[in-house]
């Protein structure tokens, strides 16, 4: 019971999201996976085949406000004390963010000199939950220590998704300067749980009428789920079922990616993309819960009128139900995907090399580049923003490296690095964001990995 309650509190407290896990891969190297971050990325190969499961894997874990070590460090401190310290230091803007994405299938081929088509299917787990500090403290400490405090329900803001994405994209060279692209995505959501845009407060305070008054003001709370409760009211029992439904077996949605690459000069390049501009329509196995209203409770007012005996308790329940109606529905609803915006400006310099491309053309490359990029992801409370400056250098024609410094919600000192290399037809890439934290995950607030293996035919 205790552990269940703990996890319930943690679940409420915490929030998850797909942060900017892949942004350092944006506009990097000549990986076919770059197309997943910018459908308008330039391509210089005629075909590519992703190694199933391994073509692109990324994982991001992030928390703000506390670190794993705050709770789980082996320091012989009492766990309850550590939990209370964490609860004390976080605030409602802090969040927990978990995102994992794995490519099941990925491939592409050149349609003509100007056009490259790519397609595939990936699965994604995406969770963000902000810290509803007020509600967590209300559950953990109760209201007695906090008379006159307005516990806010607006701090409940979370979203969790498990979905599969079937996609096809096109990258087209418009002219020597401009390359544009787009990707269509069909989402298949097997699980969605979300609670956003809540409002209301609960306050207990001393009063004249009775010793205390409890006041529920402007309550408007909603939880929406799909895939969690079946139509026969049974909870999901086998998590494996979630992943089996991600290939067009869940609630379907539609999304679009857009992107471009533009060369101001041979050395100055701008890349930008908008990803996951789309929605999912949840109509299967949906269950939504809501409560709305205002209620003031002073206690039960005994009137001592034997001629008119009253059922005070029933009146109280009826009054509450009337003023704060709750609703459970199986109505369909629409959930928007967390849209991401990427943009990068890169200045290339140094030794020039010529690369023979897929046809009898040659393209000039510089061995070094510096630049910056921004990444924004739309989240329930507010967009998450990160700024990255980077340096790229090529060790050889086939080996490229990238070093980054990122400032985001988690930290201002996130150092990342990546490598992209091609051995024959095998292209590998790997990136780690927050390299300083890799040695000790316990004390960092954010880390992300991204790696993949693809076969590329020039």
């Amino acid at each position, binding site marked *: 019971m205790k552990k269940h309650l703990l996890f319930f509190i943690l679940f409420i407290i915490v929030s998850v999201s797909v942060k900017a896990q892949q942004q350092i891969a944006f506009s990097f190297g000549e990986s076919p996976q770059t197309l997943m971050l910018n459908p308008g990325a330039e391509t210089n190969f005629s075909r590519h085949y992703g190694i199933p499961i391994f073509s692109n894997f990324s994982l991001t874990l992030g928390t703000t406000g506390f670190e794993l070590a705050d709770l789980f460090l082996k320091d012989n401190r009492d766990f309850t004390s550590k939990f209370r310290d964490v609860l004390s230091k976080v605030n409602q803007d802090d969040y927990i963010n978990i995102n994992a994405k794995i490519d099941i299938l990925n491939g592409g081929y050149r349609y003509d000199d100007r056009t490259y088509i790519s397609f595939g299917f990936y699965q994604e787990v995406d969770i963000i939950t902000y810290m509803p500090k007020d509600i967590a403290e209300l559950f953990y400490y109760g209201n007695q220590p906090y008379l006159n405090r307005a516990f806010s329900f607006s701090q409940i803001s979370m979203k969790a998704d498990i979905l599969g994405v079937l996609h096809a994209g096109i990258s087209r060279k418009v002219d020597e300067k401009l390359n544009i692209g787009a990707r269509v995505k069909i989402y298949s959501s097997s699980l969605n749980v979300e609670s956003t845009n809540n409002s209301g407060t609960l306050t207990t305070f001393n009063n004249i009428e009775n010793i205390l008054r409890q006041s529920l003001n402007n309550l408007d709370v909603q939880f929406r789920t799909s895939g969690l409760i079946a139509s026969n009211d049974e909870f999901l029992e086998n998590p494996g079922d979630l992943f089996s439904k991600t290939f067009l077996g869940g609630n379907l949605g539609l999304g679009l990616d857009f992107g471009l690459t533009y060369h101001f000069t041979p050395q100055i390049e701008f890349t930008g993309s908008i990803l996951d501009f789309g929605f999912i329509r949840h109509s299967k196995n949906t269950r939504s819960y809501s409560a709305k209203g205002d209620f003031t409770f002073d*206690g039960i007012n005994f009137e001592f009128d034997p001629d008119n005996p009253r059922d005070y308790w029933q009146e109280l329940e009826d009054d509450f139900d009337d003023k704060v109606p709750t609703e459970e529905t199986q109505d369909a609803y629409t959930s928007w995907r967390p849209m991401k915006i990427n943009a990068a400006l890169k200045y290339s310099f140094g030794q020039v090399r010529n690369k023979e491309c897929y046809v009898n053309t040659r393209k000039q490359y510089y061995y070094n580049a510096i630049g910056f990029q921004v990444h924004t992801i739309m989240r329930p409370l507010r967009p998450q923003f990160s700024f990255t400056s980077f340096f790229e250098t090529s060790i050889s024609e086939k080996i490229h490296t990238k070093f980054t410094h990122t400032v985001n919600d988690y930290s201002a000192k996130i150092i990342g690095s990546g490598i992209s290399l091609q051995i024959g037809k095998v292209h590998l890439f790997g990136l780690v964001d927050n390299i300083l934290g890799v040695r000790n995950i316990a004390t960092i607030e954010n880390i992300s990995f991204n790696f993949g293996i693809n076969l590329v035919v020039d």
Partner: protein
Amino acid sequence: MKFTSKPLVLLFMLAFLSSCVDNLDFDQVDLDIDPIFTSPLVFLELDQNDFFDADNSVEITTVADISDFTTLQSSVVQDNLTQAVFNVEVENRFDRSFLIEVDLLDDDNNVTYSFTDYLITANDLNYTATNRIFPQSTPDFLNSTRMNIVLTILPSSNQLDPNIPKTLKFKSAGIYYLSF
């Protein structure tokens, strides 16, 4: 320069696995959860007319009222309540003393818990009382589903005058100590 993929993969795996977590202990989760909740309970306000019959001719010495009170039947309370506190405040503007009896009853109207009778002396405007109940030592307490209050105006040479406004205010609140 010749590269093979194995070292790279090993490097990342090494970084990932060694990054770790050897200084963390996820088995240490043993969280004490001991919230304390409070809420208003019964309140009342009586004047001298409540102690006379309809003709205002005969003094009524005892009035009573009852209400369901099912808070204690919640499974969370049943399983985790370690202590309950009943706080009372009374403001008596009568020139008469009162005896206030508060009992908790079960569904069959059997008394499951009797609070100490509250003796409110005449003109006591700041009477307070606190009762602590420990369910472990009074298990019938958790069977309570109703609350009964009986007010008795005690005999005195001061007679009630229905034309002179007098009030008795009774307020109460409960505090529930839970432990998970």
